[in-house]
């Protein structure tokens, strides 16, 4: 029904849409999501041919390219075949007419109905959207935002358009009204297609079956809405999900580093992307569709950074780690949760090459790691449980942080020094001479752990393994350390393997949780699923014995 082929829209020199391809069939509901400024509204306006920008490419509606129609022909189509609910309600309704008149207007104007029929039809529509009868003759300023939104929806549907474009239809509503209106919109008969334009993932998940994620005027990911939300494949989509407060995910909110800039050569997201490589800044990746999911990324979406295959470690008769297969994706936090003695640290040490595995193999960035060399350690780093032990008492703060650079022979002494100081600042420690010359026994536990983190970060690793990084710290300091790790993840795109016995902390910082018991991974999945509906008894036990502030619900 609607087919958008390689559409470019520009205002002057500013290209807002940059080669968008979309198609929409009758009965389908598609959401276009993206943060503000990505060109969502421009897309809607282009379909209505209401944009002031220059439109290139083809927009086929019922097989006709509307970009080639005359304004007169377009008027026939507008409101009849395609209608749009505009975003900014306050400016859309005419303040001098009653709302029912305004709903009637398109019906009468397109000469489809006599005035009486038109009024009846308008009344039906308004009632359908839940506007009380005694409000029909009100003026727009007498209505609340929610009521105005209902009027707009009724207006858009007044001429029974085949395609309904909804631009932020629920954003001016409170949550209960959203729920109502969302249901109503979902129940609109399946004869029309709906295109929902929103920055709001909740709206998208309520109102759409398919989703297209727009960034910088390009579509970066498409797919069935629920699948995309549950397991996003493009780094941008994941960042969007992480930034969105909701009841599904349990991890702390995270922003997206940097801000949107235009124009950008290559992939529009690459300056903010956490896994960008060379080619990303030169070439726009095409949208590759596979089994209903499309991703536009040179790296095929979020990559798997580290994976273990049947990794095992035996100490004489004890099987400390038993055939563990795990994947860690770029930029995600995987929490490894289990009681002490379950083999968590042994697994971490095997990954770091401190223990040779008895069996199994380890892959990093697609390559098998046979012997751990400097390359590997340049990209995977670990922070240990006890910072007091992992820092040498003979090295000052500065020298501790410089040590990895020295070992990897990066730069000269001066460059190492400035890199170390920069990293020390990044972990929110003071870069003063006084502090840099301190020794570990002059520092508090929290400061020591920060120094240890700085030391691990100074090589700019892609993966950081944090083995109970807060267990030696009191809660407030520990919270700051976890916050710091999340911020670093946001800014650097760091992947974290967070090892803990504390599932309460794990759910706050992790995207996925793997539960370990007696050397085996017994359950792995998105944190929210593990926390809300654990499949294993042991996981339930972990959850019920986790820290809580109120005990009543347990009785």
């Amino acid at each position: 029904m609607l087919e958008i082929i390689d559409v470019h829209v520009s205002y002057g020199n500013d290209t807002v849409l940059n080669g968008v391809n979309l198609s929409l069939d009758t009965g389908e509901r598609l959401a276009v999501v993206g943060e503000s400024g990505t060109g969502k509204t421009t897309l809607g306006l282009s379909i209505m041919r209401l944009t002031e920008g220059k439109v290139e490419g083809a927009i086929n509606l019922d097989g006709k390219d509307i970009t080639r129609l005359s304004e007169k022909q377009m008027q026939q189509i507008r409101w009849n075949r395609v209608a749009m609910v505009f975003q900014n309600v306050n400016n859309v309704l005419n303040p001098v007419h009653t709302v029912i008149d305004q709903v009637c207007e398109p019906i009468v104007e397109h000469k489809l109905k006599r005035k009486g029929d038109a009024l009846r039809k308008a009344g039906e529509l308004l009632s359908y959207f839940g506007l009380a009868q005694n409000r029909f003759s009100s003026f727009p300023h007498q209505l609340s935002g929610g009521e105005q939104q209902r009027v707009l929806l009724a207006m858009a549907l007044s001429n029974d358009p085949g395609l309904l474009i909804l631009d932020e239809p629920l954003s001016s509503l409170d949550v209960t009204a959203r729920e109502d209106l969302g249901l109503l919109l979902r129940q609109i008969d399946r004869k029309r297609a709906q295109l929902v334009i929103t920055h709001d993932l909740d709206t998208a998940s309520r109102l759409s079956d398919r989703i297209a994620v727009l960034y910088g005027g390009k579509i970066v990911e498409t797919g069935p809405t629920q699948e995309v939300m549950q397991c996003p494949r493009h780094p941008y989509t994941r960042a969007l999900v992480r930034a969105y407060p909701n009841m599904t995910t349990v991890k702390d909110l995270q922003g997206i580093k940097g801000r949107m800039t235009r124009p950008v050569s290559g992939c529009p997201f690459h300056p903010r992307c956490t896994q960008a490589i060379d080619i990303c800044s030169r070439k726009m990746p095409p949208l590759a569709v596979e089994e209903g999911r499309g991703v536009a990324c040179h790296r095929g979406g979020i990559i798997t950074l580290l994976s273990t295959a049947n990794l095992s470690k035996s100490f004489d008769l004890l099987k400390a780690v038993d055939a563990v297969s795990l994947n860690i994706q770029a930029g995600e936090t995987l929490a490894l949760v289990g009681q002490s003695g379950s083999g968590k640290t042994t697994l971490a040490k095997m990954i770091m090459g401190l223990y040779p595995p008895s069996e199994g193999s380890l892959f990093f960035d697609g390559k098998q790691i046979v012997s751990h060399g400097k390359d590997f350690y340049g990209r995977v780093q670990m922070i240990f449980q006890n910072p007091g032990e992992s820092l040498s008492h003979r090295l000052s703060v500065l020298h501790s942080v410089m040590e990895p650079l020295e070992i990897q022979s990066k730069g000269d002494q001066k460059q190492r020094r400035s890199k170390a100081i920069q990293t020390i600042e990044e972990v929110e420690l003071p870069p003063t001479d006084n502090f840099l010359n301190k020794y570990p026994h002059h520092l508090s536990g929290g400061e020591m752990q920060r120094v240890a983190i700085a030391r691990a970060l100074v090589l700019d690793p892609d993966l950081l393994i944090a083995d109970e990084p807060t267990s030696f710290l009191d809660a407030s300091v520990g919270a700051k350390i976890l916050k710091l790790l999340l911020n670093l993840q946001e800014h650097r795109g760091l992947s974290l393997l967070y090892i803990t016995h504390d599932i309460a902390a794990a759910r706050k910082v992790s995207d996925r949780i793997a539960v370990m018991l007696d050397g085996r991974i017994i359950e792995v999945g998105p944190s929210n699923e593990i926390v809300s509906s654990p499949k294993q008894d042991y996981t339930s036990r972990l959850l019920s014995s986790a820290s809580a502030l109120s005990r009543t619900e347990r009785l």
Partner: protein
Amino acid sequence: MHIDLKKELKQSNLGRTGMTILLLMIAVAILAPVLSQYDPTEQTAASLVSPSLSHWLGTNHVGQDIWSQLLYGARISLLVGFGVGTLSLILSIFFGLSSAIIGGLYGRVVMRVVDALIVIPMVIAVILVAAYIRPDVLVLIFLLSLLGWQSGARVIRAQALSLKESGHVKASATFGASRFYITRRHILPELTPILLVEFIYGVRRAVFIEAGLAFLGICDPMLISWGSMMRDAMRFTYLNVWQWWLVPAGIALSLTIIGLTFISHAAESVLDPRLRGEAVA
């Protein structure tokens, strides 16, 4: 545990006393030609002269000046002591560290060799060997070092093994550090206090054994050593020469050994918290 060894040694009375004695001995050894006008090997007066202004401690049975023999004797004592201390420490470090760091079969073989060597009673072995080859100073140093490094190697190995498992060494390995780097930058510096103690032990033992061998006459007879002085003096105990011949040599030897003992004891008490306080007081 962070220890500033230098500071701790300076603060301990024993440490200060020991250092003073040792420094005094070293000064005497170096300044021997200045402190005495006679060549210790030269016959400068009649034999067995009593102390006088020209010969402060008189002369021995062949008319050599005892005072200058005493001064030059410090040279031999300290030369052998420090020579053996250094060489056996190097051997201890090499075998102790390598067996700890490389480990595996090599480490086990080294440690069995150490076990085997440790059984040999050092003094008897040295006497037997020395009786055959009549060693000069250099050979003596080698001989004593070869027979004296094993226990040091054991101690160093044990410490290195525990250090190898410590957090910051593991951390260093996760930055890609080689075993050599870890040994050089982390393990060896951490071992400094223990190395010092081992070194002083080695020196003390060597000084003692050198004097013993000289006393028994199993060494180069031309060497002027406190041990050989005492041996010669013992032959004349029926005269009263022992007062300025035997006693001063004995005192010099004892002082040196006491000084070294004080230092090692002070260093040990710094290292071992159980000895703290008790020894420093």
